[in-house]
């Protein structure tokens, strides 16, 4: 399969970015140095091109039902402009992906959002829309086609009335994150006010004159915004922010310090099959809604989980990495890591992974096997940083 390129690829190349393949996309991994980019986001602000994330639009009389059946959270809690984090699970409750679901103004046509929603960005009243409910959700890089198929198949199988359109290539998405992100957004916003948004709230606004869908969301643990704009206007939006450009390398270290899951790495239906309860995101599972995987998850909630998603801090020199075994310090395996790095903020080696429940208490002493050698570590219930 040919590698996909974000609309900003040439802009990043000219800026001297290094690229990496991720989810079938050629994305910038590093612009200057992961340490510098990471520090900018923790202390000031940074901007990320996250156009590799997918976009699927769903609208119609049964759009709410379709969204609710295929995501674990309660979509009926959303008003236009609200968003929520959710998991997409199999019948067995195993996570296929995680996603953010946005409710768009009623009457937005699926497939038209990038053109229509952003056309009149000036202080639009999101509640004034008339017509059927509409949603946009964001699957992870490379998952958009499978998500689209899943939605269409379920709709057709159950005779639901909703349009589903994969608009991944219509949209570009940039994330501006950090304690100064609100100021940066305020400066760049030409129409509409985004600094009044609460966490997980979204609105239409013009950023550098470009009609955009702006949400107070992110993946770094800092205050921040994600800006969805038409793909053709990506460079105008990107260039409107005079903050540190950041690549996927810093995005990864920032999310690891917060204990946020990376789809395909910390869970994966084939390589690392996990339920939301094992993965520590039981808060997105609403058992009082009807969704694919619900019954299996109800049973697991009653029975409890055998392994839990946890952090570890290495107490000796070394760097924990995904795939390393975790032992009780006496050669008995009690789990394994799925992610790890040297934390730039803490200057400590940290890891994330799954540990047997009886060894998962905060502060529990364990060992991580690094190239055949057990190194002392302690269990940390994430996040590693207070934010």
């Amino acid at each position, binding site marked *: 399969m040919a590698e996909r390129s974000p609309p900003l690829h040439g802009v990043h190349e000219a800026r001297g970015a290094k690229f990496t393949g991720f989810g079938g996309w050629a994305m910038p991994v590093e612009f200057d140095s992961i340490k510098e980019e990471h520090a900018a986001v923790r202390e000031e602000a940074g901007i990320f091109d996250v156009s590799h994330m997918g976009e699927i639009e769903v609208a119609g009389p049964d759009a709410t039902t379709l969204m609710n059946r295929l995501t674990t959270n309660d979509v009926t809690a959303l008003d236009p402009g609200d968003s929520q984090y959710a998991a997409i699970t199999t019948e067995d409750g195993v996570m296929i992906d995680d996603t953010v679901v946005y409710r768009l103004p009623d009457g937005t046509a699926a497939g038209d959002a990038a053109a229509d929603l952003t056309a009149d960005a000036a202080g639009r009243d999101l509640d004034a829309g008339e017509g059927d409910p509409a949603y946009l959700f964001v699957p992870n890089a490379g998952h958009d086609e499978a998500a689209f198929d899943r939605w269409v198949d379920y709709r057709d199988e159950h005779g639901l009335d909703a349009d589903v359109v994969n608009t991944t290539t219509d949209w570009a998405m940039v994330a501006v994150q950090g304690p100064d992100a609100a100021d940066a957004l305020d400066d760049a916003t030409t129409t509409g006010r985004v600094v009044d948004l609460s966490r997980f709230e979204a609105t239409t606004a013009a950023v550098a004159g470009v009609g955009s869908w702006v949400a107070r969301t992110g993946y770094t643990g800092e205050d921040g915004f994600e800006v969805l704009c038409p793909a053709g206007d990506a460079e105008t939006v990107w260039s409107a922010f005079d903050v540190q450009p950041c690549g996927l*390398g810093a995005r990864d270290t920032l999310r690891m310090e917060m204990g946020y899951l990376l789809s395909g790495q910390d869970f994966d239906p084939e390589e690392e099959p996990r339920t939301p309860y094992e993965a520590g995101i039981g808060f997105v599972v609403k058992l009082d809604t009807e969704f694919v995987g619900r019954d299996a998850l109800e049973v697991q909630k009653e029975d409890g989980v055998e392994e839990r998603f946890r952090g570890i801090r290495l107490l000796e020199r070394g*760097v924990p990495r995904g795939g390393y075994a975790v032992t009780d310090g006496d050669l008995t395996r009690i789990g394994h890591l799925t992610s790890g790095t040297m934390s730039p903020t803490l200057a400590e080696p940290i890891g994330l992974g799954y540990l047997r429940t009886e060894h998962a208490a905060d502060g529990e002493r364990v060992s991580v096997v690094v190239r055949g050698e057990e190194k002392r570590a302690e269990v940390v219930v994430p996040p590693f940083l207070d934010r």
Partner: protein
Amino acid sequence: MSFDVPDELRYLESHEWTTVADDAVRVGISDFAQDELGDVVFVELPEVGDEVVADETFGVVESIKAVSDLYSPVSGEVVAVNEDLFDRPELVNDDPYGDGWMIEVAPTDGFDDLLDAEAYADQVA
């Protein structure tokens, strides 16, 4: 982007360098290698008295994003280790041919199989 490739050194295709001398040679990784790795956060090196073998691993260098084996350009006994790197691994980024050196080896074989600066510069161009 062009990388620093000092003329007086010899190189491996895997981006390690060595000085050329009869008694003890210094070994490290190239400017290109440190740039590819990004921020170096950890090095694992042999101890003084250990034997290293040309083209075989003698340690590990880790950046935030990657783990890489280190290959020795020469065979011989390790006579010194740069312990500064344990506390300040970033020296590998800051000064790969100077303060970022890794080990010193008393070589037992020659340097004929190694790339000269011109050949290595072509490789990383």
